[in-house]
């Protein structure tokens, strides 16, 4: 069997197993079975398998693990949203911690760009986490569903710009000396970058931080468009800085959830290992996969999970 054949076998297995594993009927029956004496290791193993598949799709679909984790696990698993959000933040945090050092060393993630942005996003993530934990669960679930559907729209409509045109750096970014230089590996071209519209960009990170903390989502889906399209950072710098940024934003919110008691180790470790291993497989598959098809599939899965979160919140 050729490489493409193996890839399609894996994709088909994932396609067939994912709906079975995450279907409401499966979740409900198994939840009942669990309380009726199902072996304790049943749910951690299911969680590991699903997060492994999720890790593959997250890489192929170009999204973070957290944004898939929270709506899918809270929608189709018997775990309460409080624990799912706490675990989701740790999943997103671990991914960012794993990628951060390499991105910083390669000078693709910019610490100068990240520090002011992270200060706002992490402060607001604390506020978001406090709001999320204070609100009734059904309200958070409805808001989560609406947010996930909004993310789908964003993924469908947002454009990307490899190297946006920034005619002149604004006063704030000049004062903070937020600029840099990097070499595009594919062409060898040296790219000198600077940013503009910094005050507006920082203001948007207030909203991004609140949402990340409130729903336990990684916020790469919002970071990248703001850094790239609004503030004018090159796409590679935006993606890398966004990934690194999550390690700071999610840290602040994760502490709030952890101090509140929203961390169950039995959920955390299988999820973390599943997403990480899935991401490793996803990176290998990336070379031969058709990203457009996968991206559509991720959007479809997210939309389904968003509708499920909405309906669960509304009590249907």
């Amino acid at each position, binding site marked *: 069997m050729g490489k493409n054949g193996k890839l399609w076998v894996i994709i088909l297995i994932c396609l067939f197993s994912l709906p079975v594993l995450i279907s409401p009927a499966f979740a409900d029956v198994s939840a009942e079975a669990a309380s009726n004496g199902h072996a304790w*290791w049943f749910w951690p193993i299911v969680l590991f398998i699903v997060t492994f598949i999720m890790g593959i799709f997250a890489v192929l679909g170009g999204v973070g693990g957290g944004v898939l984790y929270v709506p899918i696990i809270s929608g189709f698993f018997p775990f309460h949203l409080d624990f799912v959000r706490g675990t989701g933040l740790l999943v997103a945090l671990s991914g960012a911690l794993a990628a951060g050092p390499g991105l910083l*060393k390669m000078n693709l993630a910019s610490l100068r760009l990240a520090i002011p942005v992270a200060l706002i996003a992490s402060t607001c993530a604390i506020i978001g986490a406090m709001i999320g934990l204070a609100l009734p669960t059904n309200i958070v679930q409805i808001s989560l569903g609406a947010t996930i559907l909004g993310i789908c729209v964003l993924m469908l409509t947002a454009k990307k710009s490899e190297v946006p045109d920034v005619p002149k750096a604004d006063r704030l970014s000049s*004062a*903070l000396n937020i600029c840099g230089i990097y070499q595009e590996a594919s062409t060898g071209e040296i790219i000198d970058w600077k940013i503009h519209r910094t005050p507006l960009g920082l203001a948007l990170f207030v909203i991004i931080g609140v949402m990340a903390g409130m729903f336990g989502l990684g916020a790469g889906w919002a970071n990248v468009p703001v850094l790239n399209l609004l503030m004018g950072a090159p796409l590679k710098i935006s993606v890398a800085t966004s990934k690194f940024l999550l390690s700071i934003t999610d840290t602040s919110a994760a502490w709030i959830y*952890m101090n509140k008691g929203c961390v169950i180790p*039995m959920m955390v*470790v299988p999820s973390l290992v599943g997403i990480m291993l899935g991401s490793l497989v996803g990176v290998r598959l990336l070379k031969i996969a058709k990203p457009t098809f996968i991206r559509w599939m991720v959007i479809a899965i997210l939309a389904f999970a968003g509708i499920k979160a909405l309906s669960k919140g509304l009590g249907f």
Partner: protein
Amino acid sequence: MQEKTNDLLKATPEQLLYARILEKGMYLGLLILFITYALYVFGIMDPYIPLDKLSNYWSLSVHDYLEHTGIKAGWAWLGMLNYGDFINFIGVALLAGVTIMCYAAIVPTLLKSKDTAYAVLAVIEVIILSAAASGILAVGH
């Protein structure tokens, strides 16, 4: 000219310092998490909540979960490290705490290079993250 460009392509000293600490903290946190999880699931250390009873609690809200299990929120887990489930919090806390260490570590480097604005921003970030970690900001339903 070429030399200057090459220098600019490299990460700054504070960025490299941050990356080194982040890398070590991340690996150490993950290693501890995997070891403690093995101690937990293989029954080498007895858990506070028996493994076969855990599924009765994870569908409850965190408020009900704490009430039913008698677990205290915040840093109370430090006093329960003799249990297999709570020992896992060491790795989780390290993963969640490594960023604070990174920020604290780059402050002297920033001050040395007379980058006062960024040194102040880094100190504020350390204060904010420490406040979140301390548990003084906990609220809930």
